[in-house]
């Protein structure tokens, strides 16, 4: 009989490593003597990259499954709420150009496509405002829930903004103290192989050889196991997604009582875009750009100009940190008994915060599909690779959509982005369909899709995508239903706008009183 899988060894202690350790240990009962053994090796010399401050709503489930209290998480990781993203200047570049990609599904999403009814009189209100209440919550700086809401429960679907460094430390403590994860702080040197090419063990400076049955590579850009050891090729996606450099900065609030935006603000620039994420104690801001389309000096100037609106002359003196981005993914993510999670598997760009959600998806899949033994592992690996190739392709399509739906002609960056040669075939086909009908669940039919058709609708219709409706008149019943849905959305919007507290007010209350578990 094949040897059963008893020990998972994770290398790397950033967000990816600790999410992997926590999720696997919690699901496979590592704190009990009969549970699966989970070891995490973190090099004391390597600093984690520490950006990646936006999550998807999936993070709520991920944390809950690890047995983490949402109150503790919010208090200790400098967390605020995120209710989607506001895209400014992406469509025309005009001062008043913006649209929202909220996290709440359109009203009646599973029953009716409201787009064509909205299109008839769209001058009244944005698509997102007409079908969803969340844009108004964001515009008014309101929180997605009440202090009386139980932990992880939402009034309006929400994700988080967090301090990535504190988050890794927080998960680490929880994994070690509550979940029985075996922690080794040491430098990994040689990778020792079995005759079949599997990893037999990793040699460390002070702890000797660490043997294991499955090795999870969470070593970030260095890709110690999947790249350096297994030499799995890296496939660049720079021909599709042009962003390759980031200038990041932490910005203090002017006044401790400043509002905290409850959404990510993304403002398009001449050769990229600027992210702006509000944490309770500071903002994290960064300019990501294509070095082919602008210089670092120009990009820096644009970032400081952006900051000047909120922090005045201090914008001239804040220290920027440069991070190189090499957009791309591995040809395979799981080889032999090694699987890559996080940046070692791939990284595209920060748009739509796809990095943490891909970690969660990969870890959930590994944990739920954990091979019983070595014999099962290749089968699981094959399906994992197919699934994640598909997932990465969908993310690439969705990110690219933001650029090709733009109508900006003012710079080469925007014009080049619409060059058909840079657009994946899969996206081109969808765009052809979507000229005549809305993105639907038929287009994204896999289990656990990263982005739902609703996300595509918000982006396409937020960006004023040209659409040719068919001539057929809708039935009277459907027309009535559409009117009812619009009215219902207005009612719900008013109700929530009056009931929900300010984002900062709720966060302060969480620090003072905490959420109840029930």
């Amino acid at each position, binding site marked *: 009989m094949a040897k059963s899988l008893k020990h998972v060894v994770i290398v790397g202690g950033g967000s990816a490593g600790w999410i992997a350790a926590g999720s696997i240990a919690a699901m496979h009962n590592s704190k009990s003597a009969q549970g699966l053994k989970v070891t995490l090796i973190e090099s004391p010399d390597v600093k984690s990259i520490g950006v990646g401050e936006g999550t998807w709503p999936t993070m709520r489930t991920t944390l809950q499954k690890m047995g983490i209290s949402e109150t503790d998480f919010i208090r200790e990781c400098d967390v605020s709420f995120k209710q989607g993203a506001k895209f400014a200047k992406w469509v025309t570049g005009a001062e008043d150009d913006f649209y929202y990609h909220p996290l709440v599904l359109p009203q009646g999403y599973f029953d009716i496509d409201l787009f064509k009814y909205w299109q008839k009189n769209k001058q009244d209100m944005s698509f997102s405002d007409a079908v969803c209440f969340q844009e108004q919550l964001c515009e008014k700086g309101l929180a997605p829930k*009440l*202090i*009386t*809401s139980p932990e992880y429960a939402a009034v309006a679907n929400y994700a988080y903004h967090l301090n990535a460094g504190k988050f890794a430390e927080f998960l680490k403590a929880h994994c070690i103290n509550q979940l029985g994860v075996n922690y080794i702080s040491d430098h990994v040197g040689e990778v020792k192989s079995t005759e079949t090419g599997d990893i037999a063990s990793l040699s460390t400076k002070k702890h000797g050889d660490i043997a294991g049955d499955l090795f999870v590579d969470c070593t970030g850009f260095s890709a110690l196991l999947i790249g350096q050891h297994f030499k799995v090729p890296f496939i660049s996606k720079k021909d599709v997604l042009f962003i390759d450099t980031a200038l990041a900065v932490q910005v203090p609030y002017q006044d401790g009582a400043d509002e905290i935006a409850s959404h990510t603000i993304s403002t398009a620039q001449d050769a990229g875009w600027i992210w702006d994420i509000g944490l309770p104690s500071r903002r994290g801001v960064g300019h990501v750009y294509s070095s082919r389309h602008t210089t670092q000096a120009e990009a820096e100037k644009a970032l400081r100009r952006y900051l000047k609106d909120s922090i005045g002359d201090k914008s001239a003196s804040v220290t920027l940190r440069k991070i190189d981005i090499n957009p791309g993914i591995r040809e395979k993510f799981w080889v032999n008994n090694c699987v890559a999670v996080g940046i070692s598997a791939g990284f595209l760009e920060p748009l739509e915060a796809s990095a943490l959600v891909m970690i969660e998806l990969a870890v959930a899949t590994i944990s739920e599909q954990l091979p019983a033994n070595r014999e099962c592992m290749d089968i699981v690996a094959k399906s994992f690779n197919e699934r994640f190739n598909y997932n990465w392709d969908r993310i690439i399509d969705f990110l690219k959509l933001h650029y090709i739906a733009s109508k900006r002609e003012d710079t080469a960056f925007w014009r080049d982005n619409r060059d058909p040669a840079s657009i994946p075939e899969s996206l081109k086909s969808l765009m052809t369909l979507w000229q005549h009908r809305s993105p639907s669940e038929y287009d994204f039919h896999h289990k656990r899709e990263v982005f739902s058709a609703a996300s595509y609708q918000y982006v396409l219709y937020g960006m004023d995508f040209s659409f040719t409706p068919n001539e057929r008149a809708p039935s009277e019943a459907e027309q009535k239903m559409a009117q009812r849905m619009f009215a219902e959305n207005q009612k719900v919007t008013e109700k929530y706008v009056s009931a929900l507290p300010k984002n900062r007010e709720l966060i302060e*209350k969480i620090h*003072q*009183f*905490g*959420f*109840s*578990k*029930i």
Partner: protein
Amino acid sequence: MHTLETVNSERHSKTKVSLASTLAKHAKVHMSHIVLQEFAEVAQYYPIFFCKDSDTGQFQPVALFGLSVDENIYQASGLWQKCYLPLKLQSTPFYLIKDPQTERPSLAIDIKDTRVQEQQGEALFINGKASPYLQQQSVILSELTQGFVLNSAFINDLLAHNLLESVALDIKYIDGQAQQLTGLYTINKEMLEKVPSEVQKQFQQQGYTALLSAAMSSVSHISTLIDIKNRLKRQP
């Protein structure tokens, strides 16, 4: 809205509180916070639940008087005179506030309360000295203050052992009207049975066992409230 004034023998030398209208004053109150010391008495008349304070999200035990906001079935049916009045309601129109000058807790009166005037009722001061009524009110307030501290220790223990659960009551009245009552929490009997024996013993010593059974038995008053409301519906 309240307008609170620190009670002062000069400023309030003529102030009186007309107690005759106390029950009428609360005619539209559908619940009241209660404290541990009065659980046994409250449980004889009202269903006891636990609710989250809308401002802090913290649980507090409450006595329920009605089945919807602004409804007081006890008052509407004329039963209220015969019932025990929770300390929180007894204490009005007095409150404890932090004195802005001394930073110490001091007695305050809500001068916007309709019962507060100078013509009739219980005087606050008699010949410049605190009246027996005022002294009594101050005793009630200190009992309440102490009660809220005990409440929160009790609730923390309940939460630590997962002994609270949310209940949604689906009510159907005789006239066909349906209603769902949400936001109420009660003792989780199943979990209570699983509490380890050393904790059971601790609960016994702290007097929690009696409080828990008072709260659990009091829930049956809900059906009485529905009966009364049905009766009230029949006689418009």
